[in-house]
């Protein structure tokens, strides 16, 4: 598939759109359907598409395995970290009311941040799983 011109051109056109759509789903999840889980999966699909068209090696140069492992842990850390911050601010664990002066604004901020954590972990784990399966077949 490495020399298929149509696929390569289409991939270059589509991948930015997929990433943009993933970001839209991530940050518009409060107002429309979507959120961290869906956005994470769509984001990882962009990279899987890249790996399928341009080969696994170039995909791993774009996003190295080490980075993915850090990102997967970072997402869970962001999520749990928000909980710890709310504890320090005097609330209960994951009680976002205390994040801001106004409880509603605090809730909104908390939801946005933890959805980001979910998105990062989901996309990183999906990519880790895909790269491990695909890399196993290479050798």
């Amino acid at each position: 598939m490495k020399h298929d011109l149509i696929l390569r051109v289409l991939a270059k056109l589509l991948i930015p759109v997929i990433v943009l759509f993933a970001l839209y789903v991530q940050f518009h999840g409060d107002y429309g359907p979507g959120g961290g889980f869906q956005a994470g999966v769509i984001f990882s699909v962009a990279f899987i598409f890249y790996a399928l068209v341009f080969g696994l090696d170039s995909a791993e140069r774009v996003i190295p395995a080490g980075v993915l492992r850090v990102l997967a842990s970072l997402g869970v850390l962001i999520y749990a970290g928000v909980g710890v911050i709310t504890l320090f601010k005097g609330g209960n664990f994951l009680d976002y009311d205390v994040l801001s002066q106004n409880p509603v604004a605090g809730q909104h901020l908390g939801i946005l941040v933890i959805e980001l954590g979910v998105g990062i972990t989901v996309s990183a784990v999906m990519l880790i799983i895909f790269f491990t399966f695909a890399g196993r077949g290479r050798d």
Partner: protein
Amino acid sequence: MQFILDHYNYWIVIFLMMVGFYTVISRGNLIKKIAGLNMFQTSVFLLYISIGNVSGGTTPIIAEGFRAYSNPLPHVLILTAIVVGVATTALGLALVVRIREAYGSIEEEEIHKQDESF
């Protein structure tokens, strides 16, 4: 007629669940077993979403002009279950790959035969 329409969703759910269950217990191929397990799982998702549906309702995103919404709680439970489901499926498939590397086969019978010959 109304009775059938009222329960059609649940019957299809049970049918899918039983087909998935049958695939798991009657077929020896491990990939097929995982496909059956996933089918079973999807039928449970359908059951939850069917229970949460309200006729005349709409997607639970609050907007002007809508009064009836379907139940958001099953949606939340199933949304996370789907993503967790794919992660556990990946784990199962990884186990299948390792079994194939260790036994040279993904047919249950052949694996059992090799185990007994030890």
